């Protein structure tokens, strides 16, 4: 299963965005996930925790909004400060 690769991508982009916005920690990452993206929600949630370890996203939540089609997009993040 490729959910770990996907989770690593999410965490990488989230950390880049965090730096861009001058934040210190990531609290949550919100994504859109369509049924045709070929990604299993449960496996992604599990992998996300592993992918976050050792980064500014450690301990953050992945919030998945289920949509239509092939969506696999990061839409927003909750960061601090």
């Amino acid at each position: 299963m490729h959910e770990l690769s996907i989770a690593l991508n999410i965490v990488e982009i989230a950390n880049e965005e965090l730096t861009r916005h001058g934040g210190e920690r990531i609290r949550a990452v919100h994504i859109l996930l369509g049924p045709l993206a070929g990604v299993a929600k449960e496996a992604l949630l599990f992998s996300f925790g592993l992918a976050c370890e050792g980064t500014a996203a450690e301990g953050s939540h992945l919030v998945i909004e289920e949509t239509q089609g092939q969506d696999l997009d990061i839409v927003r993040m909750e960061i601090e400060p």
Partner: protein
Amino acid sequence: MSGSAIMRPRIVEVRERVLKQNDLLARELRQRFQEAGVRVVSMVSSPGAGKTMLLEKTLTILSREYRVSALVGDLATENDALRLQRSGAPVKQITTGTTCHLDASMISAALMDWNLKGLGILFIETVGNLVCPSSYDLGEDLRAVLMSTTEGEDKPLKYPTIFNTADIAVITKIDLAAAVEFDVKAVHRNIQTVRPGMRVIEVSAKTGTGLENWLQAVSLKK
């Protein structure tokens, strides 16, 4: 007051495709292929559907008329590459270790020491898997999803995503259809249900049935 402000998270808008890195790299590959006049065909299926055997026949026959080459992905072993090299075409194995799919960066790395101009028709045989490869654009011109008559007729219904990201469907081992009581009509119906209008080719790499249609599709031969 300032304490509570620190506790409240800031919401920032992102709007990024999770696979943007792969998509960008795939776009770059597609452009390089186009400039070098390389046609790229990827083959996706579950393990054992007959990708390697079909590719072996394809390379052998097409190499009489075209330049052909292949990249083959597997978790481990160089077996497929060794088998395909018998056709005389340049073939390279990509071993992914534990990764269940090929992505654009693996293709790019594998092509590093090859001159793109000499590749002609480049076949990419992905790791046997009907789920994960659907997420990764490899810069190919044509993606073929293969399924064999020894699999269930309902496979297209079970794996709609790969049928939706592929350009053509190929039913392999058609010579075994009767022996395994494979309902060819049902599979055509199921493919059209998940992907109306999809082109479907029936082949047997062993007997040669339907091979002409497949070769025409991959080489754009008239």
